């Protein structure tokens, strides 16, 4: 086709379009076939038959946010490791030692989070 980069864009755009088209088609057929009967009782949130008392968007346990922050840190670490991993054969032992220093520094943070009880759920 044209050039390697543009080819990739075309290929991924095509797959994206097929996926989106399939989802839209299903919902469109459903829109044509499905019955529509409005009723304010149907539009209430489902809480096992009890009338909902308050809005669902209440403050949540802070643990979820701690896990998310740790995820961002460790996932960034993983992304740093990827280019090192694919060129390890050419770089040899010196790169190995450098990466071990990097991982050890991050493991210190990991054990700090462990001791702080981020991974303990009650």
């Amino acid at each position: 086709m044209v050039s390697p980069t543009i080819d990739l864009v075309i290929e991924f755009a095509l797959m994206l379009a097929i996926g989106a088209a399939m989802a839209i088609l299903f919902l469109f057929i459903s829109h044509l076939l499905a019955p529509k009967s409005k009723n304010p009782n149907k539009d209430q949130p489902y809480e096992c038959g009890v009338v909902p008392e308050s809005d669902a968007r209440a403050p949540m346990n802070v643990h979820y946010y701690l896990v998310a922050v740790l995820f961002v840190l460790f996932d960034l670490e993983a992304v740093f490791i990827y280019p090192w991993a694919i060129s390890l054969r050419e770089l040899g032992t010196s790169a190995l030692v450098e990466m071990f220093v990097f991982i050890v520094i991050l493991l210190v943070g990991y054990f700090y989070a462990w001791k702080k009880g981020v991974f303990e759920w009650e």
Partner: protein
Amino acid sequence: MNDAIAQLIFLIIKAALMSILVVTLVAFIIYFERKFAGFFQGRVGPTYLGPAGAFQSFGDIFKLLSKEDIIPAEADKRVFKLAPYVMFIPAFLVMAVLPFGPVGGTPNLFGYRFDYVIANFDSGLVLLLAMGGIAVYGVVLAGWSSNNKFSLLGGLRAGAQMISYELAMGFAVVGVMVMAGSMNMVKIVEGQSGNFWDWYWAPQLVGGIIFFIASLAELNRTPFDLAEAEQELVAGYLTEYSGMRWGLFMFAEYVNLVVVSGIVSTLYFGGWHAPFTVLDFIPGPVWLLIKIMIMVFIYMWVRWTIFRYRYNQLMSMGWKVLLPLSIANLAVTAIVIAIVG
């Protein structure tokens, strides 16, 4: 006809065939899952529609299509409608990087070169992990936009669970990258040429097992289906969804099951390679399909055999066991590769 147009035609054929094949496969996998569930639990499973109930999934799809689509009055309507697409579409992008036969080389079809992959992408493995990350958005957005306490809890649980296990998954695949020296799925499969003991499952046994466990959590399947634990959360983030919108979530779940089985086969079980080099006369796509079906069966087997974990067990397993193990696996692989070469 010049080569560019031929490649474009091939691309359209490949993309259409791949999507149709996976979607048809999904319909039968849903039937197999129900049949296996029946077998494991001493029941018969679906029997009425078609021979031995084989058309059950098509009946289900028509039922879902003709069901009313209810959007709660308090819901964030745009996000509520967007969430099923966010779950559904990434699986199709992952399909693009899965090779199902040899790539490159001499012209092999009507004088043109036919590559058995949709996108020969150098960072295929990163794309795959990124799409896993986007699926988390689908779950969290669905849970948040429903404005229902069960949905919100299910969405948050699923989000925390999926990102925790994605970490272990991300570190486990580094072992494969070090072995293959590439992030391109095509090169990873080429690195596994030979008999079945040359595949990466043998040197990457620990990494493979971690990847498999993490993929169970990514797929939200039992034993890690905390997001829709029906005894405590009704249906988790799916509580407010009905009709075909709910159907799209279920559909996406099974498309993801097929795609993840394909990824596990490609990374650890030789992709389209035959288990013995003497069997190379059977084309690659057949082998990949057989491997995908075996992996799908293993996922079903696990689902109907092991019961659900408690949430604190799940999180401590992800963070305290799988993450250190995957880093240790990476370290051992890197030492062996750097010293032996």
